[in-house]
């Protein structure tokens, strides 16, 4: 086994609380499939047979009991629960399962929806014997109007500066705008080794990482790191060019130091793999080099290397905001070829269903309805003369006669009263919308 897959599915979805109030994030329906299905499917497609899923008790329970949550994956799922209230970061979670990690790991976040060719990332990892390789994609503009928001939302998030070398693969620099006081500071020693650095902003990190086993071991030793994206990755990127990791001498020294006082926490990362000796020999004897311009060894003798694959095209979404959620729902049908209308759904012949809509299992769609660019969840009942456009209707929703729903998200088990007119709204689970009401851009999220 070359890589072990680890799926991080314990996140609370703090940036879209309206949706995750009743449904945990991994189980939010996207295109009538739980969100977690997408990364699992991604892994299954490339041939993983087993995956470690780090999740919460709640999710585990729902996966095993709730009939609506059908993962339908053939992989063996090794569900590991962590406490929900422990406020564990992704790196903490990885540390939690250190015992299970036998080889290098592929860490995927549960909110990733992509059609990326995973092998690109893994190939970088293999080809360069990298410590870290990750996936990024050009950020997308979300065009759809987000329910419950008036006007256009500013992109409040701070930009990431990502520096790659001339090939666009080697990750040289990473900084978030928030951490920068006075502009971007780049060490000259990096510039000397990599004279051309492309600084990119407007990239979105897919939160998909290939990590060496030694990194997981390092995490186990170093408890101060709690998040992969926030702390571990920037740390590794920086460490690429620090002397202590590069010269073998120093590493020997730290080894000795380690032996001397085991109590001292080892803060240095040790990068070594099983065939280190042989690899070193091959590199020495080979005339291959990763750079040109100076006469130094390949990788300038560095032992820690980070790579990134940046997708130019294709779908890559992280469903962590409402806007992303809506966008993902719109695009999800393109990712799998299943009939848009589930066979068990009862759909009247005298209704209009657009080709870009999905109707879930055992739905009831009555006469004279029109459904366009929308997703209708499992066991939802849609009565006569209803018009649904650009909306996401989750499971078990009842929509009474003559409703008009546009650009909205209706969460599970909601009931929309007769003749209601809902535009750009978010209706929380089990909410009741009074008949004949007219609502625009509001969010009735939690049952208060």
């Amino acid at each position, binding site marked *: 086994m070359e890589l072990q897959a680890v799926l991080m599915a314990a996140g609370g979805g703090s940036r879209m609380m309206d949706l995750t109030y009743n449904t945990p994030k991994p189980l939010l329906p996207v295109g009538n499939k739980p969100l977690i299905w997408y990364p699992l499917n991604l892994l299954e497609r490339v041939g993983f047979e087993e995956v470690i899923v780090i999740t919460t008790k709640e999710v585990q329970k729902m996966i095993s009991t709730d009939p609506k949550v059908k993962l339908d994956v053939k992989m063996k799922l090794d569900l590991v629960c962590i406490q929900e209230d422990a406020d564990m970061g992704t790196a903490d979670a990885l540390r939690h399962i250190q015992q299970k990690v036998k080889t290098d790991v592929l860490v995927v976040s549960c909110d990733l929806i992509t059609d990326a060719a995973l092998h690109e990332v893994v190939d970088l990892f293999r080809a360069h014997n990298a410590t870290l390789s990750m996936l990024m994609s050009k950020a997308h503009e979300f065009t759809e109007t987000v329910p419950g928001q008036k006007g256009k939302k500013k992109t409040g998030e701070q930009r990431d500066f990502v520096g790659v070398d001339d090939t666009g693969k080697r990750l040289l620099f990473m900084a978030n705008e928030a951490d920068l006081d006075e502009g971007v500071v780049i060490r000259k020693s990096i*510039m000397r080794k990599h004279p*051309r*650095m492309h*600084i990119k902003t*407007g990239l979105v990190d897919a939160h998909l990482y290939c990590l060496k086993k030694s990194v997981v071991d390092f995490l186990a030793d170093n408890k101060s790191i709690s998040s992969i994206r926030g702390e571990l990755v920037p740390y590794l990127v920086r460490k690429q060019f620090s*002397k202590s990791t590069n010269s073998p001498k120093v590493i020997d020294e730290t080894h000795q130091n380690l032996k001397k006082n085991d109590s001292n926490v080892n803060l240095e990362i040790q990068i070594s793999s099983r065939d280190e000796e042989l690899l070193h020999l091959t590199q020495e004897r080979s005339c291959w080099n990763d750079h*040109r*311009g100076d006469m130094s060894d390949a990788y300038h003798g560095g032992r820690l290397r980070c790579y990134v694959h940046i997708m130019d095209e294709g779908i890559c979404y992280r469903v962590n905001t409402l806007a992303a959620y809506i966008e993902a729902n719109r695009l999800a049908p393109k990712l799998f070829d299943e009939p848009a209308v589930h066979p068990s759904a009862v759909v009247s012949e005298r209704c209009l269903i657009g080709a870009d809509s999905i109707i879930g299992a055992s739905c009831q769609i009555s006469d004279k309805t029109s459904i366009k660019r929308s997703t209708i969840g499992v066991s939802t009942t849609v009565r006569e003369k209803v018009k649904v456009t650009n909306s996401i209707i989750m499971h078990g929703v009842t929509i009474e006669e003559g409703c008009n729903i546009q650009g909205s998200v209706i969460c599970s088990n909601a009931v929309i009263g007769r003749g209601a007119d809902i535009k750009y709204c978010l209706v929380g689970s089990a909410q009741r919308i009074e008949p004949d009401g007219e609502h625009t851009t509001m969010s009735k999220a939690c049952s208060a």
Partner: protein
Amino acid sequence: MSSRGGKQKKGNVTSEQEEEEQPLQAVLVADSFNRRFFPISKDQPRALLPLGNVAMIDYTLEFLTSTGVQETFVFCCWMSNKIKDHLLKSKWCRPTSPNVVHIITSDLYRSLGDVLRDVDAKNLVRNDFILVYGDVVSNIDVSQALQEHRHRRKVDKNISVMTMVFKESSPGHKSRCEEDDVIVAMDSKSKRFSMGTDEFEIRHDLLDCHISICSPQVAELFTDNFDYQTRNDFVRGILVNEEILGNQIHLYVTQDGYGARVSNLQMYDSVSSDMVRRWVYPLTPEANFTDQQGQGCTHSRHNVYRGAEVSLGHGSQMEENVLIGRDTSIGANCHISNSVIGNNCTIGDNVVLDRAHMWNNVHISSNVEIHQSVVCDGAVVKEAVHLNKQCVLAYNVVIGPNLSLPDGTVVSMHHPEEEEEDDDDEFLSDDQEVGHSKDKTRQKAFNPAEVGPEGKGYIWKASMNDTEDEELAQCLWGLVLNPDPESDSESEASEESQDRTFQLEVLGTLQRGLEENIVCDNLVLEINSLKYAYNITLKEVMQILTRVVLEYPFQQQGTQLTTLQYTGSLLPLLKTWSPVFKNYIKRAQDHLDCLSAVEELFLEQDTHQTAMVKVLMKMYQLEILEEEAILKWFSTGATNDKSRQLRKNQGKQRMSLQRKESEEDESSEEGE
């Protein structure tokens, strides 16, 4: 300006035609406005120094002509007569020259800025022009860059004011000038200097050729901004004001082609060897592009060039990359490699030359060894002299016999002090009028230990003056900058040094305050202004202040103080400066920060830890620190073993403090 106005009147079509018709102009600055080549440039302006036996300005003019320039303005200042004479004799001033050369001289030019302001005042340029220095050696065809520049100007209505020509060369390449180690942030698509866009590129593999294509506005901008002195000032000014003025600077990157500015001897060495190795083709030594009689030479294998009438003694070897000028004779059993030898030189027997640059009329006796050195016109090297690396023998110097000059020796007929005296009118330029008739009384005797028994000349020390600026100017061979240590520390080096200088400044201020009895209020004022000058946060100011004061006794009386002596000298100081402290320590957080600074210092000075009790006590008594703050500091968790130990030591003190406190309370109550 008027030319531009005229163009606008005529409209687009005619202006385009006009652009085509107008001759391409160039501004050549034949002065470096620095003294990097001192003392060599005392006798000869830099532009006329021979490189591959041809004056450097000829390379520049040849480059301009071959790129299509039809009118060149040569601006000279230092030794302008010599340059003028040289140009008048050269092919550029013949009536057949495709490139009309105008020589403009003035003693008033002090910088590139002055030259360009003069260009504007005299209204010399009508269109885009090329700006180069007289020491640029290049074979780059800039017509492509020129075309791009014109296109940009046409599309964007004069937004692009300058296109700088860069050559690709990775770091570590020997033609990269250490002092000119540029890092460029550019927009890869538009080739613009920028940082703001979504995607940009940072390049460290570019070499500034010091060739710029300028729009006519450049001269105007220099006039408008009379503080611009150099091109760097200009570039910085444009980039800083880009959003306001909308001017942009673009760059043109060439992959092949050669371009470099001979800005110091290191560069001279590299460019000269590149020349001999034919990197600057078609400007090669045997091409005789200056079209002068007798300059021709033959080119044979291993890049060996021989001028006319060269005689080579029996057993002498010219290994490779050797250029020998006309009428030079070389004795027997010599070994010459990677060297350039000028005209009319004589070289004795058993001479070893490696990377030597010998100019005209040099006499080398037998058994001499020269490595990577420059020997100027008329110099004489006597028997058995050994020149180590990076030596310079300036004009007419005599060295030897039987002497070995250490690395980096500079010998000149001009006495270094003579130059220093001239320094009074302090601008740094080559163009100081040095008295040619020397004041014999002032001249000191040559030191035989330095230049040999028969030697003539004075040693120039590499760093005669203490100030850094002067040192830069003195260093002929250019700086050898140590690569920044690839340390792990994430703190920025520059920031640290800024803190450090701030600390020194604060120390100086306090010292002066003590000596001159300055009122504390004024000290506070001074420290505040320092704070702004170095951009230091208030917290750091306080911590540094605390540190400086606590270290003051060590500073004054050495580090071997006993604890008793230390406290003895420190406590009065604390009293004197307590108003300064009070000014900075106001909020509760300030107290804690101050305490942590105290703690940090005493952790370093662990022999004096016991003094900390007294210091804290005194600070408390002087009402610099509040009791609550001290107690809070004491109770907050110690971050490591050492500080825990420290706190333990303070335990007793805490007790006494509390006791004292209660006593005080009582007494005050009694008083009431």
